[in-house]
């Protein structure tokens, strides 16, 4: 039995300690934002935030993240609402600025990798409110255990969306 703190909620799971976090999130907790892309921490499709750091859930044993703060794609709106002190009603009707920007810029093609891209963007923008183009490329290429890969080639649209999200976040809404 492992106790997890996911998207601000304590969850008890029965999975063996060595189960990769991804399978617990998807199969036991029905959090479907993270996707299985490689199982090898090579692509980023499965990324979640663990204590604010972009982490590949496909290779992290569930027991190793017990009691740490896990945020999945589903938890981004609440994360933003908490950071900005939004009311419960406001929080319900909002998306994280990164998600808003991904829609405004029409970033995804198939969208399968975009969970990881949005998690990476959130990690970046929480530490650097106005990243340069070079810093964005660095974040998505060398800052993690591997580059965040997109097979549809949406990198231009991702850069546009990160810059757009930075603008929304600067306005505070």
């Amino acid at each position: 039995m492992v106790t997890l703190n996911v998207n601000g909620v304590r969850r008890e799971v029965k999975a063996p300690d060595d189960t990769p976090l991804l399978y617990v999130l998807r199969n036991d907790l029905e959090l479907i934002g993270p996707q299985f892309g490689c199982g090898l921490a090579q692509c980023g499709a499965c990324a979640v935030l663990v204590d604010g750091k972009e982490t590949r859930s496909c290779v992290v044993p569930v027991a190793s993240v017990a009691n740490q703060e896990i945020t999945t794609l589903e938890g981004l709106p609440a994360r933003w609402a908490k950071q900005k002190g939004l009311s419960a009603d406001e929080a319900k009707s909002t998306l994280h600025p990164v998600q808003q920007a991904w829609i405004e810029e029409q970033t995804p093609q198939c969208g399968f990798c975009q969970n990881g891209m949005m998690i990476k963007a959130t990690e970046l923008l929480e530490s650097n409110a106005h990243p340069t183009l070079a810093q964005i490329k660095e974040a998505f290429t060398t800052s993690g255990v591997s580059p965040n890969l997109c097979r549809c080639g949406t990198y231009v649209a991702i850069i546009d969306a990160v810059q757009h999200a930075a603008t929304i976040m600067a306005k505070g809404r």
Partner: protein
Amino acid sequence: MATMGGTIKREKPGNVFVPTLSRRQFIKAGGILVVGFSLAGPELLKGDSAKATTLKNTLDPTLPGSWIEIHPDNTILIRTGKSDFGQGSTFTAYRQIVAEELSVPFEAITTVVSGDTDRTPDGSGAFDFLGHGTPNIRKAAAYTHQALLDLASGRLGVAKDKLSVKDGIVSGGGKSISYGDLVKNQQLTLTIPVKGDLTSIMGLTVEGNPPMKPVSEYTIIGKSFKNSVIRSKVAAKETWATDVRLPGMLHARVVHPKTLGSTLVSAGAVDKTKFPNSQVIVKGNLVGVVAPTEWEAIQAAEQVAGATKWTEWKGLPGNAKLYQHLREEADWTTAPVTKGDGNKGDAGPVLASAHKKLSATYQLSYMKHAPIGPTMAVADVKPDGTVHIHTHNQNLQALRGEIATMLRTTPDHVVVHSYPGPGHYGRSNGGNAGAEDEAVLLSQAVGKPVRVQWMRADDMQWSTQASVSYSDVQLALDEKGKMAAYQIDHYMPAMQDDRPIGAVIAGLPTMPAPQVKSDSVTSTVNGIEDPWIYAPVPNVMEQGHGTFQVGQKASPLAVGLRDHSMRTPGQFQQNYPRELAISEAAALAGADAIQFRIDHTSEERAIGVLKAVRDASGWDARPSPRPDAVSTGSMPVRGRGVSLMLRSGTYWACVCQIAVTPSTGAIAVEKYAIAVDPGIVVNPVQLKRNVEGGAVMGISHALFEEVMFDESGITTEDWISYPIPTMADIPEIKVVLLHNPKVGSYGGGSEAANALAAPAIAAALHDATGKIMRRLPMKPAYVQAVLKT
């Protein structure tokens, strides 16, 4: 996004059919106009009983197997057999097209139904969404518009030709009525003519020539609308295929054979001390492991794989001997040689007495579709033999037929539900992506729903690939530096194998392996896919040579290196050698590569995209290589190249500016400009995003992608051994959309972009270094070797 094979030609429009509108009954509340279809012509009689049964489901208009519903509240529902693979066309362009033909607001089309063989009308693959300007949904909408006008004429007592429609309100003679009011309290069924085979790769086609709205009156097509599915994906509200969980479902992994020719000696047993709830299923040479949890299935499959014994097999040439094998050992004699539509004159004598001549061979490697998520499927085989498959697939009706064949049953026993998933770029347009058939066999064996998820290595090693090819070019210049003769011979193994791999491994019935005589794209015949754009060249000879897939005949499993059409299929393999050769010819003539192309074409739209890309890239007109070109040293040297293509009614040109470091052979694309003339631009924002993505994939094909294999099988297994670009690899990308309404139609906008970079980058390498590289991919080690010559 991807892809159809080239041997299929669209049916020419037939006679004008008169659609029939019937009033089933007067109903007190609600009301609806349902557009269904009937089969036109001899197809009705030709169909076997299986097909007839399948079609019977959708012929009943009380079932939702229909195209368009007009509701009394003025909302509209559309249905399409096409599944979205990231192009977004079903959620954007299809809504725009229907809204335009019906003269209703975009927002009136509130529902798009797709992805279900029982709830969509037309089948076919997720390619050619815009149907050369007339997709099925456009004709269905046009018929519907006429029927609504007829209804309005009767209700208002105004002649049809005196009526006009705006925002769903029909007006004339001082009177008006909304579409919703026209259908209120009635159940109306419009029957329209269709033709074709539902479970074939092309599916059904709407026939006839209903009057369509003149382009000059378009108000919706040409504007940017958002793709509605993006919001639900971004907000984690979408149900992906990967999310399907059925009651009692088991998780499975498949232990694929050791080589592409291995047969099973003995399946390993599960170590019950470690994996008490797992079991091994064996069907022919197919070994599956099922367990209640995913993690147990993964671990147990790994343990079983280690204990399973296979025969050894070596029957592939391996990478090092691939092109030698193709030239010297492959049998190119069984498939008839195909000829280009632009062939003319007599190239032979002109080539023999050329003033200047180019003679060269160009090679493209095998490439993977490499979806970012490995293939998976959930199957539920019911006790009565009914099969439900939950998957992510480009051609649901074709999969339905293939599973029926495998199970020796009829398609009406199979229902396929498709959900969003990773892009396939053509891999499943023939009906299977892998895993679906395996899930069915395992579900059948255990009597429960089974979810098969391929691991990354399964996906790299047991899926199909874009076919290898090589081309021999001979080209003659006259004294004035003009092309006097052009001859190209394309050699490519069969590019589409639609057999489900699990069924093949299990030894169950499938369609035949690629052969010469085939009524589908699975033939070994290599058609000419790349339309000739340089009409003023007086002597042209383009020929296509086909053969069987490498290893297909030698493998006891009859698999070998299976190919499948991939984004711009066949045409990429033919356009790369052509466009690089044209750039070389320009250099040989001492001419600027863009001006040389302009001087050799009479096609206004080709010239238009070339000029647009010349302006957008800041191209300075001069011959290649650049005067200070160098092929040694550790300082980057820069160059630029161009390429040109016509595909699906759309003209494309791109310019790549690169920096290459001769000592390492590393190429960086620094700037990329692309111009697109599709005729009418349906949705500028969506087209721009599609083109940007295609451009990046093109750079990937050009620089990185090569399937590695040895004598036994594919050794490429992950993103390290099969690299694709990272964000750091992408250049500044400029997209120029040329909205050209006088063309009167809209061409495709997603394919082609991925094919343009390779010949432009190769020409840029020549420009920078003076050395020609005629092989893809342009990996550093291969570039280094060329620069040393």
